[in-house]
């Protein structure tokens, strides 16, 4: 057995012999360049410090995200342990939390993503969706003693309310509604019975610059009065089983241009304790061709170059929390087939007092139609008043409504006069389900008065 004595010189010679001269050249090159690199490093010392600082900050952010994720997991674990019967609040277009519900899981998960959004608001992550969906629906049973009508169970609107925070300033908002039954434009039935149809009721790209200036492009609910922009297509939000006659949708025989396609600007007006707000809108307005079987909302094509304009002002005074008082003015030019053009002006005023346990809504609207070449203006006044008080889960309510249109009215001659009271009771079976029972008594000009009864189960999910 031979013992080999370690010698660096011998090792170097072997290395040179074994690996060739090129390795030696590289090694020598490295040795020569090392001092240069050290000099360069010294020159970049400040840059390194900055890099370290940035890395430390990034580590802190990552730690924060880890802590939040751990918190989320802990919440989920607690939820499972508690075996709660309440569903967790979805990441829907609602508050990130549902009261008395289990600790948030779905709502909390996106928070780290939210941070990213804020830090780099314009970066689009293709691997995730920003879409959130909240649903509203209702199922009804209604009956009336009006001739020709039968009592029936009916499916109300199934409303998918969709939002997406595109960036810090932009947001998408939409309402996709599935509804059954025939359409009814100006009392002209269209479509088939018992069939479902889909309507995109709202379709908006919103831009929020600040509290005083916000823009929305697309299809919106016209800011005429209060009710139209307060409840949209959710029956669950409404105290009663349905909208006032004055604010019925276009495809349910309504007389107002509830929807519009165009541009809407809104915001606060610097006014101190008065709490003034404005809404200014310009859009296609409502179609007026008669007989009308087409969609009255001009989603794609306007029947004329004249655009409908609407200006609304309202105040929410600080001194009386819950009070809102306002008015609006709308103007459009309609072109019914075979008739002179008609100037349409809609004036509306409202005084609303809404607290969590009490509401008192009052609105009055005047629709004015002035045909070209005629000095006569057709006025259609309407109003409703509604009052409700909550006692625990129960909320009794009362509403009186009135519309009076002329029989010679050029745009909606079949509306006539209709008025009457409604009484009802809303019972909130849970935070998301409401049962309503409503009695209506309707007095009309040309038909016999009739009674109606509606039982409704409204819900959000």
């Amino acid at each position, binding site marked *: 057995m031979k013992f080999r004595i370690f010698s660096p010189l011998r090792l170097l010679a072997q290395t040179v012999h074994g690996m060739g001269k090129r390795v030696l050249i590289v090694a020598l090159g490295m040795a020569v360049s090392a001092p240069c690199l050290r000099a360069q490093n010294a020159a970049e010392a400040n840059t390194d410090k900055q890099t370290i600082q940035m890395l430390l900050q990034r580590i802190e952010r990552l730690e924060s995200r880890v802590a939040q994720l751990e918190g989320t997991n802990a919440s989920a674990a607690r939820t499972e342990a508690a075996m709660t019967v309440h569903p967790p609040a979805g990441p829907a*277009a609602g508050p990130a*939390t549902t*009261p008395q519900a289990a600790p948030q899981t779905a709502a909390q998960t996106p928070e780290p993503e939210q941070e990213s959004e*804020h830090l780099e608001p314009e970066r689009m992550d293709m691997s995730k969706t920003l879409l959130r969906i909240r649903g509203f629906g209702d199922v009804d049973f209604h009956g009336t003693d009006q001739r020709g009508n039968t009592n029936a169970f009916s499916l109300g609107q199934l409303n998918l309310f969709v939002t997406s925070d595109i960036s810090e300033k932009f947001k998408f908002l939409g309402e996709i509604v599935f509804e059954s039954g025939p359409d009814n434009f100006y009392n002209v039935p269209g479509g088939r019975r018992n069939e479902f149809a889909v309507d995109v009721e709202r379709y908006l790209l919103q831009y929020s610059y*600040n509290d005083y200036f916000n823009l929305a492009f697309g299809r919106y609910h016209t800011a005429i009065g209060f009710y139209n922009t307060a409840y949209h297509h959710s029956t669950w*939000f409404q105290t009663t089983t349905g909208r006032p006659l004055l604010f019925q949708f276009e495809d349910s025989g309504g007389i107002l241009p509830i929807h519009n396609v165009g541009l809407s600007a809104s915001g606060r007006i610097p006014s101190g304790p008065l709490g003034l707000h404005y809404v200014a809108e310009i859009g296609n307005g409502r179609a007026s061709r008669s007989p009308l079987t087409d969609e009255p909302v001009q989603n794609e094509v306007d029947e004329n170059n004249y655009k409908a304009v609407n200006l609304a002002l309202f105040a929410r005074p600080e001194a009386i929390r*819950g009070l809102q008082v306002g008015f609006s003015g709308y103007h459009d030019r309609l072109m019914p087939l075979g008739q002179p053009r008609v100037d349409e002006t809609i004036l509306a005023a409202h005084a609303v007092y809404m607290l969590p346990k009490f509401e008192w809504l009052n609105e009055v609207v005047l629709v004015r139609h002035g045909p070209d070449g005629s000095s006569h203006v057709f006025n259609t006044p309407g109003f409703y008043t509604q009052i409700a008080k909550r006692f625990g889960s129960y909320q009794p309510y009362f509403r009186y409504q009135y519309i009076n249109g002329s029989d010679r009215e050029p745009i909606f001659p079949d509306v006539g006069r209709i*008025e009457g009271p409604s009484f009802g009771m809303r019972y909130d079976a849970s935070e998301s389900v409401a049962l309503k029972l409503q009695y209506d008594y309707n007095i009309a000009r040309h038909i016999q008065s009739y009674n109606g009864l509606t039982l409704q189960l409204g819900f959000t999910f």
Partner: protein
Amino acid sequence: MRRLLALLTMVGAAMLLLEVSPGTAKGDPSPAAQASADQNLAIIVNQTNTIDDITLKELRTVFLGERSHWPNGRRITLVMMDPGVPERKAILRDICRMNETEFSRHFLQGLFTGEVFVSPKTLSSPTGVRKFVFNVPGAIGYVRASDVDGTVKVIRINGHGVDDPEYPLRFEARDSK
């Protein structure tokens, strides 16, 4: 019909009076002079936020989503703690003057109408709230005064610092039970 409307108006006015009077009384939080500093709730914002002082009324508009931007143009992101947490109870009672159901419904309706731009974020721990506020420039949240550290900025309310005896946001002992 006129009689009916007159009657309804009178009923409405009477109920209105009944509703207004207790509402105004609810707004004044009772100062507990003997409360120690760690029983106060600190309102915290991001260090880059220029705001130093806020009135209780303004704070209410922020916590109800009625105000969406800070003066520096940043979008406000509200951070709430889990339902049932004493700090959250105090905020709902003293600032929002709502219960959980009403608060939830308020925000849902605000989002639905488009008046509220962003829903509040919910976090379960003061550490989480602090870190979220540290990371998000427009964030506002609340923690116990004893949970505050240097990563966030505490703002004064009605001119009072969190240690002042007149500081209006107190986290009362009964809330923690």
